[in-house]
């Protein structure tokens, strides 16, 4: 039997049993809708969480150990020698130094190049950390340099990519400041600061002078509430202000493969240093929680799809039993057992496809409804997603494919039953 004949006859049969077709399509539709809805929800929430907690699975942050027995027995300060040893660990592709600036820097004027209603007398203490250029090289604006500048020139800084979101959603509303427009290109923005000045009493240094910070890019590798400057700038300022460096604040190791991270972390601990799980651990825990929840919901949806397959199996079995004579008639006209089997499977396949298409549409519409409701109900908070769902093209194929596959699976037994009809007996 040719495919077009098969589809033609299956369509005629489905049309003739409109009620059964609608019930079976609805069963397939519910399974597909639930599956697509929950998988899209899991991916959407996962994407939103990754924006909030952009943990890099290949980075290990090494900090001085809580208890140190001195460099001879391991541990001790994170000095250049320690950085060298860390860089030599198997699996490590790069070791980037971080050094917190202990000279206060404060901004008491609005950044240049952007309109802001900076309150009179308003001063912001700027936490600064020095980092190796290699750590943030990929986040620099094209042509941007991240080196300690000659005296009198603006110091290049990188800000956390998330800081802009936090500023717009939290800081600006709290201080009644103008929000920065979305899509604003902040690179090149100059921030006038006072080096040595602190808003904390008695913390201002004897020497205070004006300087400028120039935004060279945005990076997820910069701590949320800090600005990153070249580590050489921090060392220069420490020398300038007589602050002795006992070692670096931390060293970020870039590991070649995420799978090697546990081994590298163990090696670091054996060296007497500690590993700051920090944001990466939070990101991992959040990611795991989302994966588990989304997986459970997807399993529930798969269960619903399986139940739909069972319902279709039951309905088709009843239909086949009721059509025994019709099947025998088709056999008398030349249908083989294979034709009869294919016919029942084709009917189920068409029902599954139709149910899948409708189900995917319902899931998409429901997702839009949930998003619209969330916009109305949830307060505006940093990183609040515009959608809680992600619909990559393959998810539509997944919904339709699983629905059709479930319907076909449910039709296997009824199809075998139909193929066993004895025409001479059934037609009598």
């Amino acid at each position, binding site marked *: 039997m040719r495919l077009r*004949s098969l589809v033609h006859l299956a369509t005629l049969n489905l049309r003739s049993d409109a009620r059964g077709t609608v019930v079976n399509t609805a069963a397939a539709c519910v399974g597909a809708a639930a599956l697509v809805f929950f998988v899209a929800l899991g991916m959407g929430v996962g994407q939103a969480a990754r924006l909030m907690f952009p943990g890099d699975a290949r980075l290990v942050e090494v900090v001085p150990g809580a208890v140190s027995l001195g460099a001879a027995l391991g541990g001790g300060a994170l000095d250049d020698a320690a950085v060298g040893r860390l860089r030599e660990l198997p699996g490590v592709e790069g070791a980037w130094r971080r050094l917190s600036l202990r000279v206060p820097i404060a901004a008491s004027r609005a950044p240049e190049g952007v309109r802001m209603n900076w309150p009179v007398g308003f001063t912001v203490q700027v936490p600064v950390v020095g980092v190796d250029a290699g750590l943030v090289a990929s986040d620099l604006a094209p042509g941007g340099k991240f080196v300690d500048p000659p005296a009198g020139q603006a110091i290049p800084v990188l800000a956390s990519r998330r800081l802009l979101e936090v500023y717009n959603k939290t800081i600006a509303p709290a201080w009644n400041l103008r929000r920065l427009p979305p899509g604003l290109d902040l690179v090149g923005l100059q921030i006038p600061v006072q080096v040595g000045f602190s808003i904390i009493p008695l913390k201002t240094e004897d020497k205070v002078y004006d300087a400028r910070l120039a935004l060279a890019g945005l990076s997820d590798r910069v701590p949320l509430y800090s600005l990153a400057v070249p580590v050489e700038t921090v060392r220069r300022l420490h020398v300038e202000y007589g602050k002795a460096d006992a070692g670096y604040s931390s060293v970020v190791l870039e590991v070649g493969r995420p799978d090697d991270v546990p081994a590298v972390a163990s090696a670091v601990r054996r060296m007497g240093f500690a590993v700051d799980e920090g944001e990466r651990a939070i990101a991992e825990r959040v990611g795991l929680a989302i994966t588990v929840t989304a997986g459970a919901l997807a399993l529930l949806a798969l269960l619903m799809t399986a139940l739909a397959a069972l319902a279709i199996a039951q309905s088709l079995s009843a239909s086949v039993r009721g059509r025994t004579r019709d099947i025998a*008639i*088709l056999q*008398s006209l*030349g249908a*083989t057992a294979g*034709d009869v089997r294919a016919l029942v499977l084709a009917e189920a396949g068409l029902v599954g496809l139709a149910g899948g298409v409708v189900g995917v549409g319902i899931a998409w519409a429901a997702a839009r409804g949930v998003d619209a409701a969330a916009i109305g109900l949830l307060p505006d908070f940093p990183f609040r997603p515009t959608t809680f769902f992600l619909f990559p093209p393959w998810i539509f194929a997944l919904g339709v494919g699983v629905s059709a596959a479930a319907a076909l699976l449910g039709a296997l037994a009824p199809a075998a039953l139909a193929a066993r009809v004895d025409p001479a007996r059934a037609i009598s």
Partner: protein
Amino acid sequence: MIALRHITKRFRDGERQVEVLRDLELTVPRGTFTAVVGASGSGKSTLLYVAGALDADYDGEAVVAGKDLKALSARERAAFRNASVGFVFQSFNLLPALPAVENTMLPGLFVPPGSKAPSLGQLRGRALEALDRVGLADKAARLPGRLSGGERQRVAIARALLSRPAVLLADEPTGNLDAVSGEAVIQLFSAMVRDGVTVLVVTHEERVSAAAGQVLHLEEGRLR
């Protein structure tokens, strides 16, 4: 054209076996009209199912339209039924949910792979021609439930004619028809015989057997 040799067919009835056909012999020459008459339950329908390759579970030899039916696989028997045999039943055996034209098209949907299959449009054209031949072109879109008994049987005959079979096997074709409709069906059979079709009808109605060139009686599983 139809040659049945030493055909024996048994049915299991609980613990015992019942012989419906016993060493049956039948020869129907090509292009003739043969009627087999007999009482209800005498095995007339079974004889047709054997000749039409619907039943392969028998002893003996059946050669129909040049094919030794015993030697055919299940798939080949299906292809044989599709290409060489037309069935007409007492209860019409139309699919109730399909319009007359779709019922008539059915054999064309099962053309086996390897044979030239017409398109659905061509098939519909052929079905309409067949319906026209039995005088029902104007009722092609009607469901069987909206046709009279005689009209339904004519649709069944049109369906049997679609594949231009060599053999037409009819099981009590006028059993559910009034005199006028029955006469129309008999005339259709006679016309088919004139076109070279071999017609074998099992019936217990005299008006049918009267139109046949050969009349055989089935008693106790044998033809006399």
